[in-house]
């Protein structure tokens, strides 16, 4: 059944049972305004909800009932036993309808015109149509045949009613005894009511018979209501606490029996253990709610926002039925709302902005929730503009959070972390929805409060993703028990990535940079903290060296920052119940709480966030530093890794490192000749060697450095004198080269350097290096667009060799000019980042073009992520190739063209 409907049924049955009681009370106590307004409110709520759910029949009855009650409340009508009966009757009808709804999930056919008419009549006149209506029913013919009588009959009905009213209710005697003048106003109201009831009567009778008797009795106990009960949250909380204690006690017992094989307690204890676990799960389940409950408000918020900000926003919610602890749900509700708002407000561009950026007009905010190893992961992502690093930097300086110099040394990730600082909002203007600078810091604090973490991934121009990781429940967490300085501590499992055992003679050993311990872990340097030291337990003399011989390192992660905690021993993991520490210890940021272990001892729970902060806040995100820096650089000014070498002469030469497969040293003695060309046996194959120019002289003996280029099965070695360095630098190529084998020269690392044309040498070694499959026939025409002269000059000859006729232009605008001149190409290779019109815009512009619309476009970029691929495909690129991936480019080109 629809959630909404079942909830409605549960709620309404509850209201109805209240109503029964209240109405009876009202009858005894007709002048109590409290009871009356309470009844009115209940009926009103039912009516309102019906209207919302689209239940017209139910709504009509409730509406009529409400009318009567409204009049009574306003003092226009007097409460009588009949009035109460009438209202009760309408409530019975509502109950019956609800019963039907519950069984069939739809309202039964027919309507309740009779009842409604009587209710309306009572509301209008204050008199009960009661027994009169059935009496009127058997007289349909006169009404229909002789219109004249209608008035009479109506009046008759009315006077019947009046009579009844007079008899039963002791209404104003004047009203009852009065004749003509009083009846006059009543008459116009009566005929429609009467007529209505008569018209419907025949149709309704059979329906009423089959429905009215048996189901109405049953409808009293709604089965939906019987299936669910409402329980005070506090009761559940208490249950949870009790179960937590039970779990602890069970653990304690297990600990006592452990190691005693033949204890008579073993078997019953095992049973106790199972039951406790089941009970724990059961109680936990009572607290579980789908995360969708916390999302319910979001579509509305986003819609309003979209209207206000003139944006088109598509809110996607995935995994709304993922369940998590009620308490956690409450706590993340606000942060979530805030973050979605942020994404919609700051993250997404407005419609013109999106068009400009070459994105579809409708921006997407995606919420995705799923379970992952005892945690709930919630991702909030948008495809908007991403975080603006420059603005964050400026703001960080303005707020005095960092100096320019510090920022210079920070990675992209680290800089992005600033948005979690208090008072940090990069929105240019404060809108009614966000940008007031209370925001992400509060979000982060709230999430960390419940033992969760927030990660942030953002790519400028492409959107941001926040990843929230929170424990399923707050009550019981699993924790790793470690020992340091003779004391045991618990570390919440959520922040533990892995355990490393370091010793001097294993592959992991602790190294020191001026007393600061670090660990090499999978090609990264992991900062280490010694738990003993930061806890002040280091009472012995400096025995660091001995510690280093063998230590356990708990690799912990806080946000994007990972670090190692050196501990003396690691025990197992235990389920613990987190208890807050005493108020006098609250300011110890290193602990998030304490707990009692299975053996009954008290143990402190370490807070990895606190440790990370303690060990130097500025280092948060630092481990991303190197990686991040390279990224920043590349986004600011594109740099290229160049291999700098000397060959034949003192001048330095360079080649893009990405083109070089390996660096080797070849013993001159091993060089052989075949067909007059130098060769060397290399990895079981013959590798031809080429020299930088014809006049190059190899050494007579010793070893000769060689750059190895590889392409599929073939390798080629370029013999050089010396490999100087590998330099990351911005390439600013000055084109001089008419000389074979040179692309041009550039200033690399402060020196003028010749850039060699790898393609030339490749061709030298194998004339058919680039596999010219389509030798015969016409050469395919390829348009190459790249703003970098270096790449144009690198790719043009390469593609020519591969058998294409290449036209190279500098900008997309130039390409458009060619198009306007009506020149045709078989394929287009376009760079993405270009001044003026960028690759995405270019591709979009071509999408519907008559002339070039069908031409496959291959994107060429140094940024290659999944999103890039996706985005590229969306705007019409047929394929996506990373710059320098020569092999892929040629094969993609061949493939693309063969598909056409």
């Amino acid at each position, binding site marked *: 059944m629809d959630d909404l409907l079942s909830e409605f049924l549960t709620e309404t049955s509850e209201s109805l049972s209240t109503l029964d009681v209240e109405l009876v009370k009202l009858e005894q106590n007709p002048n109590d305004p409290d009871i009356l307004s309470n009844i009115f409110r209940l009926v009103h709520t039912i009516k309102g909800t019906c209207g919302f759910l689209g239940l017209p029949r139910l709504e009509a009855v409730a509406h009529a009932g409400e009318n009567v009650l409204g009049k009574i409340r306003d003092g226009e009508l007097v409460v009588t036993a009949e009035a109460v009966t009438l209202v009760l009757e309408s409530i019975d009808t509502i109950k019956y309808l609800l019963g039907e709804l519950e069984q069939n999930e739809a309202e039964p056919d027919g309507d309740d015109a009779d009842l409604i008419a009587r209710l309306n009549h009572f509301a209008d006149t204050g008199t009960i149509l009661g027994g009169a209506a059935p009496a009127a029913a058997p007289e349909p013919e006169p009404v229909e045949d002789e219109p004249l009588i209608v008035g009479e009959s109506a009046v008759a009905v009315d006077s019947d009613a009046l009579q009844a009213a007079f008899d039963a209710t002791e209404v104003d005697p004047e009203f009852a005894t009065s004749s003509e003048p009083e009846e006059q106003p009543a008459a116009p109201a009566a005929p429609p009511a009467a007529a209505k009831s008569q018209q419907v009567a025949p149709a309704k009778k059979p329906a009423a018979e089959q429905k009215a008797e048996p189901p109405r009795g049953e409808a009293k106990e709604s089965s939906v209501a019987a299936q669910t009960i409402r329980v005070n949250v506090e009761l559940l909380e208490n249950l949870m606490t009790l179960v937590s*204690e039970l779990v*602890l*006690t069970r653990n304690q017992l297990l600990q006592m029996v452990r190691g005693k094989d033949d204890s008579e307690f073993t078997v019953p204890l095992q049973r106790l253990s199972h039951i406790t676990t089941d009970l724990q799960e059961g109680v936990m389940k009572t607290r579980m709610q789908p995360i969708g409950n916390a999302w319910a408000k979001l579509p509305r918020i986003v819609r309003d926002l979209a209207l206000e900000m003139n944006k088109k926003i598509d809110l996607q919610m995935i995994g709304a039925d993922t369940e998590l602890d009620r308490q956690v749900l409450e706590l993340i509700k606000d942060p979530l709302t805030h973050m979605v708002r942020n994404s919609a407000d700051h993250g997404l561009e407005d419609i013109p902005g999106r068009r400009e950026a070459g994105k579809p007009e409708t921006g997407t905010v995606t919420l995705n929730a799923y379970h992952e190893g005892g945690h709930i992961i919630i991702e909030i992502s948008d495809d908007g503009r991403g975080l603006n690093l420059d603005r964050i930097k400026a703001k960080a300086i303005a707020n005095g959070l960092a100096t320019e110099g510090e920022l210079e040394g920070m990675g992209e990730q680290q800089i992005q972390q600033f948005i979690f600082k208090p008072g940090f909002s990069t929105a240019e203007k404060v809108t009614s929805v966000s940008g007031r600078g209370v925001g992400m810091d509060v979000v982060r604090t709230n999430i960390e409060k419940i033992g969760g973490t927030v990660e942030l991934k953002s790519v400028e121009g492409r959107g941001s993703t926040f990843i929230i990781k929170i424990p399923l429940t707050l009550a019981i967490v699993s924790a790793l028990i470690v020992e340091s*300085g003779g*004391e*045991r501590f618990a570390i919440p499992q959520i922040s533990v990535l892995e355990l490393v055992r370091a010793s001097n003679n294993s592959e992991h050993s602790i190294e020191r940079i001026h007393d600061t311990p670090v660990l090499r872990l999978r090609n990264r340097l992991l900062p280490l903290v010694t738990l003993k030291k930061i*806890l*002040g*337990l280091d009472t012995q003399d400096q025995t660091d060296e001995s510690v280093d011989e063998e230590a356990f390192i708990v690799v912990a992660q806080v946000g994007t920052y990972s670090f190692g905690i050196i501990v003396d021993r690691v025990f197992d993991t235990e389920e613990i119940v987190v*208890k807050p*520490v*005493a*108020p*006098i*210890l609250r300011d*110890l940021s*290193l*602990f998030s709480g*304490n*707990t*009692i272990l299975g053996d*009954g*001892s*008290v*143990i*402190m729970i370490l807070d990895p966030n606190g440790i990370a902060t303690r060990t130097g806040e500025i280092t948060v995100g630092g481990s991303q530093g190197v990686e991040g820096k390279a990224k920043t650089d590349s986004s600011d000014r594109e740099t290229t890794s160049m291999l700098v070498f000397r060959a034949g002469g003192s001048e330095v030469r360079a080649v893009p490192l990405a083109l070089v497969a390996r660096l080797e040293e070849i013993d001159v003695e091993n060089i052989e000749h075949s067909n007059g060309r130098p060769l060397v046996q290399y990895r079981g194959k013959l590798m031809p060697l080429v020299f930088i120019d014809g006049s190059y002289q190899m050494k007579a003996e010793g070893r000769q450095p060689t750059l190895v280029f590889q392409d599929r099965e073939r390798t080629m070695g370029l013999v050089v004198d010396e490999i100087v360095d590998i330099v990351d630098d911005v390439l600013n190529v000055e084109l001089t080269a008419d000389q074979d084998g040179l692309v041009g020269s550039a200033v690399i690392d402060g020196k003028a350097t010749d850039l060699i044309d790898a393609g030339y040498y490749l061709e030298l070694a194998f004339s058919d290096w680039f596999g010219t499959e389509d030798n015969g026939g016409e050469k395919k025409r390829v348009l190459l667009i790249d703003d970098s002269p270096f790449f144009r000059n690198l790719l043009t000859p390469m593609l020519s060799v591969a058998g294409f006729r290449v036209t190279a232009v500098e900008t997309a605008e130039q390409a458009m000019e060619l198009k306007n001149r009506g020149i045709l190409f078989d394929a287009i290779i376009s760079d993405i980042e270009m001044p003026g019109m960028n690759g995405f815009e270019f591709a979009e512009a071509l999408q519907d073009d008559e002339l070039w619309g069908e031409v496959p476009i291959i994107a060429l970029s140094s940024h290659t992520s999944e999103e890039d691929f996706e985005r590229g495909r969306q705007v019409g690129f047929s394929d996506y190739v990373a710059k320098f991936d020569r092999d892929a480019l040629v094969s993609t080109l061949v493939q693309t063209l063969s598909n056409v």
Partner: protein
Amino acid sequence: MSDSNALVPSHERGGALDLGGDSQDFVTAYIGKQLFGIPVLTVQDVLGPQRITRIPLAPPEVAGSLNLRGRIVTAIDVRKRLGLRDKDDDDPGMSIVVDQGGELYSLMVDQVGEVLSVPKKAFEQNPATLDPRWREFSDGIFRLDKKLLVILDVTRLLDFTSSIKQAG
């Protein structure tokens, strides 16, 4: 309002003392040779030696925490709190557990004595010359036959924020 009320210090913190009647009950404890009293109604428990978990980085007066029937109790070294030297002997001592704002604290003393009922007439204000630290934690003095009973103000004793301010 009986006459004896006049003897009760006028400041608010004497609340625990003002119970009406002619006498008051205290749980007594020794630290060194000094006798201390804690209003009997604030006391939850009296404990023998306990296994105490140290809490690193906590104020030195916090001895650690212990498990009292499933509740975590913070142990306070009253000796340190009063600025006394550590004990010379290895006697593990005893503790008086008090409830403070819903939290349990265990006050570690050398020895717990009997519950004394003392006449209110025997009350004296703290002598002005008393060590300021003691004056801070003492509600006043009762004159007993052979000894003086120093009444500990548990609220102040456990209020670490003010003492930090003082130290600063």
